[in-house]
């Protein structure tokens, strides 16, 4: 019996002739549809991935870093209010390879009051937590200092100064009017009534906007000021950690535990995106729908092309069988043809995405409410789309050619 390699060569020969001597217009149009389907899948997925990536970056850069350490539980199982021995903990944390930096924060509830004309007639009040930061430490773990819309970032020695997120200030293009002071400017004074009964007056030193709503709804004073308000020292409500991201967060959490951060609650940044998780999940569903539709379009197109090709060559297929060609050779030649359409479409699509779409979207990113979104091609999704297109094309090539090649020879030749 003939061997598989001979059969493969024969199928390859037929496939080559179908392409080189077949209708060029059909080849070009089919490849074009496969290309468009591939681009559509990856372009829209890439934009959505870019938006998700932006959310992730904003969360890490301006909100909670990579890892957050929070107070652990006391002997009765109740959550502690503060982390203790913070200086010692920070030294341990900073000694771990791959940790870029850490910063401790206090967070306490407050009521913030703004009286723009100081007459008491138009007092604007919001109930909002105030956070404290050590400005020098904070610069190592967040990008906040680079997003000052107006005024300046805090200095370590600042005591009567406060910086506000744009959404709290209610000015400078803030979009969430409900919980804001409705138009605080640099140099204005605000009064903060802390929950422990302490009242302080601050001058607004700066207003920042990361365009990430979660980050822009925060109020900061210096650590020294907050320790003075709370009457505490060497404690923190949370410690924010940035890593070099060489390994997943789980690795660094393990390293933190090994380094002696045992009693505290250590959580990765993903635990803090609850508000935007719905968006991310919706984007994932949209991406799957886009992939599905794209594959259907490409698959059906290739199926139709192969179906028409084999139907119009029914007699020819009958003749091939009559001279002794095995059905497998005929089917393989059409699967090769379908694969050719898909793979050429993929290659052209990759070229368009790589050399046209990506440079264009880098130069002209979309303005999303959370920042500028560019194309982010996720390798796993990209590979999935390629593999899916190939699998779909194999199916689209197999089914019609298999059906026709199984026909009785006489019926195929004479109808």
């Amino acid at each position, binding site marked *: 019996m003939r061997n598989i390699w001979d059969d493969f060569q024969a199928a390859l020969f037929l496939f080559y002739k179908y392409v080189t001597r077949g209708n060029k217009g059909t080849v070009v149009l089919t490849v074009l549809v496969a290309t468009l389907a591939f681009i559509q899948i990856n372009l829209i997925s890439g934009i959505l991935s870019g938006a998700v990536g932006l959310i992730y970056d904003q969360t890490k850069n301006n909100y909670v870093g990579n890892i957050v350490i929070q107070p652990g539980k006391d002997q009765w199982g109740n959550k502690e209010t503060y982390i203790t021995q913070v200086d010692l903990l920070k030294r341990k944390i900073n000694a771990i390879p791959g940790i870029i930096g850490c910063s401790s924060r206090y967070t306490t509830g407050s009521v913030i009051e703004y009286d723009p004309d100081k007459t008491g007639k138009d007092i604007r009040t919001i109930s909002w937590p105030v956070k404290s930061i050590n400005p020098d430490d904070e610069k190592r773990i967040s990008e906040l200092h680079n997003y000052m819309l107006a005024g300046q970032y805090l200095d370590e020695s600042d005591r009567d100064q406060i910086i506000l997120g744009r959404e709290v200030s209610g000015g400078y293009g803030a979009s969430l009017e409900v919980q804001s002071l409705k138009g605080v400017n640099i140099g204005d004074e605000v009064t903060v009534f802390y929950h422990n009964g302490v009242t302080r007056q601050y001058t607004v030193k700066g207003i920042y906007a990361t365009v990430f709503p979660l980050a822009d709804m925060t109020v900061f004073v210096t650590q020294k000021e907050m320790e003075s308000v709370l009457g505490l020292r060497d404690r923190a409500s949370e410690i924010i950690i940035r890593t070099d991201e060489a390994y997943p967060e789980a690795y660094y959490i393990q390293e933190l535990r090994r380094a002696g951060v045992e009693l505290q609650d250590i959580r990765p940044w993903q635990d803090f995106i609850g508000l935007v998780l719905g968006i991310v999940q919706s984007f994932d569903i949209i991406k799957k729908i886009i992939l599905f539709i794209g594959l259907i379009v490409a698959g059906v197109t290739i199926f139709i092309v192969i179906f028409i090709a084999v139907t119009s060559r029914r007699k020819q297929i009958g003749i091939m069988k*009559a001279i002794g060609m095995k059905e497998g050779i005929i089917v393989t030649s059409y699967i090769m043809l379908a694969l050719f359409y898909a793979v050429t479409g993929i290659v052209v699509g990759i070229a368009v995405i790589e050399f046209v779409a990506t440079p264009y979207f880098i130069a002209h990113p979309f303005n999303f409410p959370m920042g500028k979104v560019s194309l982010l091609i996720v390798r796993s999704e990209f590979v999935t789309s390629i593999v899916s297109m190939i699998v779909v094309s194999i199916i689209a090539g197999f089914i019609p050619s298999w059906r026709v090649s199984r026909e009785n020879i006489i019926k195929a030749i004479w109808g």
Partner: protein
Amino acid sequence: MIKVTDLKKTYYGKVPVHALKGVSFQIPSGQFVAIMGPSGSGKSTLLHQLALLDNPTSGQILLDGVDTAGLTQGKAADFRLRHLGYVFQEYALISELNAIENAFLPLMLLGMKRKEFIRVSTELMSKVGLSNRLHHLISELSGGEQQRVAIARALVNRSKILFADEPCANLDTENKGIVLRLLRKLCDDLGQTILMVTHEPEQREFADRVLWLRDGMLVKDESIDKAVREDALHNGYRTDVSSDPDYLKDN
């Protein structure tokens, strides 16, 4: 050697059609046999069964001693490829392939080396008078040329038996003569066994023997006189002697 015993073929539809009703005959190797009969007599059906293109309802076909009833679909395909050649009524060629590619396709399927199958098929194409048309696409060939390509393809595997189903049906007089003389020459020179279905009485004169079918039964087994054959070979369907290809002129 072909041995057919009580061959029956029934097509089962709303009304069963008994296309062959128990045909038996023997054909020794190297004989050129014409199968004749009116439309619906079962000529093509008989050829399809003999060429393993279809399965008979009952009866036995022995091709060179091989009982074809025992062949699976795959083995039947392999048997066709190695031992049989088939020339269809219409120019049954593959349009995406050129003349020589159509001719060498069976050799490629047999796993022959490229150099070798090109040499063999080029020689054969030369024998059928198409050495100057090797790389022409099928659409660029005349009907007669296409049919000669089909004959070359049917012979390229050194088939023991060549089946031809009305090979001249769509040809003009000149090309009919060329194709029939070619078949006769193959039989005389190479000892090729040929079974040809035809409905034109004039064509039977090229054969050694005629099997007459009527209503699915063999009704007459006629031998053709050598003198008639010789006359047909030299004068049959000839419009102009000079129009014959060179390879036929030595006859």
